[in-house]
């Protein structure tokens, strides 16, 4: 699993990257009440706003940590957005993105580097 400074995570399986927001991000948001996942088939650029996560107070954009085509969205979140709080880095995934170039992940942080970033916040 790799991490961005915007608190998204990516897990690559073959050429499909599962993406979501980190536990830290979910904790900061507080109670998640709505998730707008991207449409399947949509092409997203790295750093594009591709999903929205909403707490009681506010809506926050989620940025695509990798470029590619959305091949699956986590539809379960529409009925159970609280899954993002309960299991942000597992069942609370947002979408699966087919990446053309796996080297995109090279610049992302590993767990140790991400934990070190969190320690500075």
């Amino acid at each position, binding site marked *: 699993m790799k991490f961005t400074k915007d608190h998204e995570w990516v897990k690559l399986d073959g050429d499909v990257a599962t993406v979501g927001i980190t536990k830290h991000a979910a904790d900061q948001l*507080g109670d998640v009440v*709505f998730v707008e996942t991207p449409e399947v088939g949509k092409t997203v650029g790295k750093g594009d706003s591709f999903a*929205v996560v*909403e707490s*009681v*107070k506010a*809506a926050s954009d989620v940025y695509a940590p990798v470029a590619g085509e959305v091949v699956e969205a986590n539809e379960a979140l529409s009925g159970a957005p609280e899954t993002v709080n309960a299991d942000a880095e597992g069942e609370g995934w947002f979408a699966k993105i087919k990446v053309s170039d796996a080297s995109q992940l090279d610049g992302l942080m590993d767990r140790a580097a991400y934990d070190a970033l969190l320690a500075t916040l």
Partner: protein
Amino acid sequence: MTDLKTTPLNAAHRALGARMVGFGGYDMPVQYEGVLAEHRWTREHAGLFDVSHMGQARITGADAVSWFERFVPGDYQILKAGKQKYSLLLNDDGGIMDDLMAGKPDHAGLYVVVNAGNKEEDFAYLQSRLEGDVTLTRLEDRALLAIQGPEAAGVMAAHEPVLAEMGFMECARLMLFGADCFISRSGYTGEDGYEISVPADQAERIWNTLLEDARVKPIGLGARDSLRLEAGLPLYGHDIDPTTSPVEGALTFALSKSRRERADFPGADRILKELADRPARVRIGLHVKEGAPAREGAEIADADGTVVGKVTSGGPSPTLGRNIAMGYVPPHLSELGTELKVIVRGKPAAATVVAMPFVAQRYYRKPKA
């Protein structure tokens, strides 16, 4: 980046692990354990809020009440001692400069509470217009607590039994917790409860004393906002502002009958004309029936898709389990049951005009003698 001011309870919030944010120029707790849990606790038990950022003042002098009436549309002459009344500070165009509470907790003039974000302007405006023997004294050596929820009365009665006998919108100056306090049975959640003005140097002790009761938990500004939204209560600077008249803001209950007859409040020409005819727009409640919560700034469209207004606040209602919003539309689209659309991130979602409050208010009304 301006330095945030702190309330006398700042250290207490930090000790409780609150997440702090800037609000109205103050470093305030937005949540402790979480907005949803705090919202529900207040609806079921008793929530304790630090609202010391709000502006407290006394207006005294033989002519204090008649002088104050020049700036607001409420009849404070007939208000009895021991009562308070919601009112609006109006500009000369009949726009709302602030909403406020003013009451007569004793026989020494008015006790007034205004919004944190407006207090400097409000008090400067009033100070510059003082006349005769009227004085306005800011109570900056006081904190303000609110305790709200169905168990609030039981909690407070354990400290002072007479508080159970107060009716909604009654107020008093009393010794509570060994301190000189102003107290009113009122609040901003739609629940029964009290607001208690306490000496700043006693605030932390009184806050902690109240939290010792297992029925009481601290509640942050996040839940305060979702609670007041469900109660249909406007938030100044969002749902009402200096361009909004009391008629547009659906606050005509604040226009006392005697004052309408005398037409002697700021902006009376505009306001009375809007009452007789119709205002350009009016604040309504919406049930958003699909999609994401509609937040402040979302456009409201009619059935044909023509934009007719804007959402001024909105979000999920934890009590109702659905999305609610307040906003402004032309009066012909304000009838209950009117089908409208709210546009969230470019997507129209069906919304219906519904009555406010969204969640029934549970104020304590004394049985008639």
